[in-house]
């Protein structure tokens, strides 16, 4: 902190800090803010009931299950027939209906797990964004601290200047008052002493050494 013509000047470091902060913000706005906004939009829309991500996840879950069961059903039918259990038999028919019920249950569970996966991704995405935001709010708070620090150093410098100005004035005043009192003291003391012992006698009510 330098002083020039009675004013506090910010140090080159402080000016550089402000400049870098300004440039970092501009860079963030150009490069990262659009990306962050896009991410936030994607995450927010993902959570909706009919979002593309939900349809994708549940659709894939359903088709994967269908595919897995489709192959299993073909094999089971073939195995039954190989064992002489034909389409006309109750065993074959009930085998098919049992498998269809299993498939229905599996489809329902797997599709719901797809929904849950999207819920997880949605909440996780929001939490990640929140963490970025928290970092930013912390940075803002730190920035407040930094600017307050520079401000307080500036104020401190101003206060010191003011204090030294004032102290200079007081010193001058003190010298003047002190000098005057030293000159006047014998007369003042004499006057006080003449008023009687009630005042303790010979007190100096003005101390030139203490201009305040």
């Amino acid at each position, binding site marked *: 902190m330098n002083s020039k013509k009675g004013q506090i000047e910010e140090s080159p470091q402080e000016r550089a800090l402000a400049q870098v*902060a300004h440039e970092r913000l501009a860079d963030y706005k150009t490069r990262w*803010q659009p990306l962050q906004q896009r991410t936030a939009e994607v*995450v927010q829309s993902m959570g909706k009931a009919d979002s593309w991500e939900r349809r994708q996840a549940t659709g894939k879950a*359903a088709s994967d299950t269908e595919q897995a069961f489709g192959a299993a059903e073909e094999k089971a039918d073939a195995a039954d027939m190989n064992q002489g259990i034909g389409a006309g038999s109750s065993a074959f028919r009930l085998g098919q209906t*049992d498998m269809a*019920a299993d498939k229905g*249950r599996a489809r329902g569970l797997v599709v719901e797990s797809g929904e849950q996966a999207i819920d997880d991704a949605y909440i996780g995405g929001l939490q990640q964004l929140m963490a970025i935001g928290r970092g*930013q709010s912390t940075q*803002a708070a730190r920035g407040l601290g930094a*600017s307050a620090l520079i401000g307080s150093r500036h104020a401190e410098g101003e206060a010191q200047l003011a204090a030294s100005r004032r102290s200079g004035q007081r010193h001058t005043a003190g010298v003047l008052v002190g000098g005057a009192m030293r000159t006047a003291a014998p007369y003042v003391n004499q006057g006080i002493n003449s008023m009687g012992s009630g005042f303790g006698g010979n007190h100096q009510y003005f101390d030139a050494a203490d201009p305040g």
Partner: protein
Amino acid sequence: MISASQALADFTQEQWQHYVSQFVPIENSLIEWAVDPNKVTQNRDRAMTGFNQQFDIAQQGLERRQRSYGITLNADEQRASDRNADLQRSLGEVQVANTSRDLTIDRQRGIMGAAPAMPQG
């Protein structure tokens, strides 16, 4: 020319405003999700509806397969088939309802538990 202190203060203000406009809505979405008293019921209903839709699709698939084999169930077979389908449907409904409820409550508690600490001055 503004002072470094003022520039930093402006920067901080802008950063805070950006946080308020960009991230506070996100935090609000999360808070809303965590405290919504209907969320458990909504998700449970969604899970059961979704489950039943998938189960119905599988039953429709069965009908197509039976037609392709020229199969028509007799009354006893139909009853046995319905009984099994109803059992599987009920078990599945309960399973997805419970799972959905548990996971939703877990997520809500997780969000609440991860709430940020009070900012330090």
